[in-house]
């Protein structure tokens, strides 16, 4: 059995006939060719595969592509605007929030979900938000700093925009 699915990924519709057992993460990587989303464990434990599904962080190894039919997905490739990095990406860069980078796409997408709901999180909020994401390199401290850095930047941009009005 094959099903036609159309998934909006980073604003682009992707249409393909797929087996119902195809996981969303494989759709993203193999059908759409977006390999920024990583596969660490494939057992819902590591968070490397985290993407936004209709704006909410989910583990794309634990969602079927057919479940995402007609919905919209944001992957790490959807964060930057052309050459301009997203505030979160800048934060990770500036605070050394990554070493090997394997966990980073998941960390970024989870932090994105956090900042959308809590623009000024505490360290405890950030640690809670990335509780489902494993990093084998950094020891997490710089990731927490990176998310804080991004939250400060985003707050500044919001107030600058309000001032310009």
């Amino acid at each position, binding site marked *: *059995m094959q099903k036609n699915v159309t998934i909006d990924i980073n604003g682009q519709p992707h249409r393909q006939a797929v087996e119902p057992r195809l996981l969303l993460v494989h759709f993203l990587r193999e059908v759409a060719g977006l390999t920024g989303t990583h596969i660490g464990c494939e057992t*819902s434990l590591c968070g490397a595969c985290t993407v936004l599904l209709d704006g*909410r962080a989910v583990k794309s190894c634990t*969602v079927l592509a*057919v479940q995402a039919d007609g919905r919209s997905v944001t992957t790490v490739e959807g964060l930057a605007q052309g050459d301009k990095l997203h505030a979160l990406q800048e934060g990770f860069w500036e605070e050394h929030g990554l070493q090997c980078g394997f966990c980073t796409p998941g960390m970024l997408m989870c932090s994105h979900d956090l900042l959308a709901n809590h623009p000024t999180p505490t360290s405890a909020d950030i640690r809670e938000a990335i509780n489902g994401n494993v990093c084998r390199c950094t020891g997490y401290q710089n990731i927490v700093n990176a998310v804080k850095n991004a939250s400060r930047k985003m707050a500044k941009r919001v107030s600058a925009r309000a001032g310009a009005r």
Partner: protein
Amino acid sequence: MIPANFDYESPRTLSEALDLLASRQDAKILAGGHSLLPAMKLRLAAPSVVVDLGRIAGLNHIRESGDRIVIGAMTPHADVASSKILHVACPLLAQAASQIGDVQVRNRGTIGGSLAAAHPAADYPAAVLALDAEIMAVSRSGERSLPATKFFTGMFTTELRPDEIITEVRVPRTEGASVAYKKFHHPASGYAVVGVAVRIKKAGTRIDSAAISITGVGHIAYRATAVENALRGKPLGVIAEAAAHAAEGVEVLSDYYASAEYRRHLATVFTRRALEQALEASGK
């Protein structure tokens, strides 16, 4: 890790879903997918057809209805955890939901799915037991109400028939009661090594009524009746003594992470802490 092949159905109405369940023998219901999909990936489950409830309207809501709060079966844990209605009227359920897995799991997993899966270390079973919740299920032969206390029959098994779908969970308003959910997380899986749900009512300096339930310890969450009996009608100071009965009469699970002896100990400690937290939250 790839599941075995299956047919996928995505009905738009409950009655279409019920027809599918009635006509296809080994159909499995897909709610949030956080119990079923992992099992399918490990090939512990290989249904020939999966019926996805994700596109049926009207199963995702939290609303007040008389002296009860009604939660639609497809409501994700994150929405239960952040519900303003529940924070006021039934904080125990919101507390339990907020401690399930991690953010991503809470965004996908649903209350109906978690209850139907009846995992021995899931959080919701303890909460609905302590709340004396009602679980509503429909099939082509009509609707029935299953009391939580009769719902769970064993590890991964419930009173639900294969042709039934959970539509909603009804919990009482608990204003005036002291409630808490306290959990010892498994560090990797996020499941409860021990999770304790507490709902007690005080009368002056005594405990008037007590509903205590525990997950993670036995084959399925249970009401700790020995603790309840040791609390009822007694002064508040009896808590530590009563908590010692937490695993009484229970065949305690044992695994690489926590031996039966350790789990039994944790059950006592977390029952005491949950009781203390409940009383503290309601200002002793």
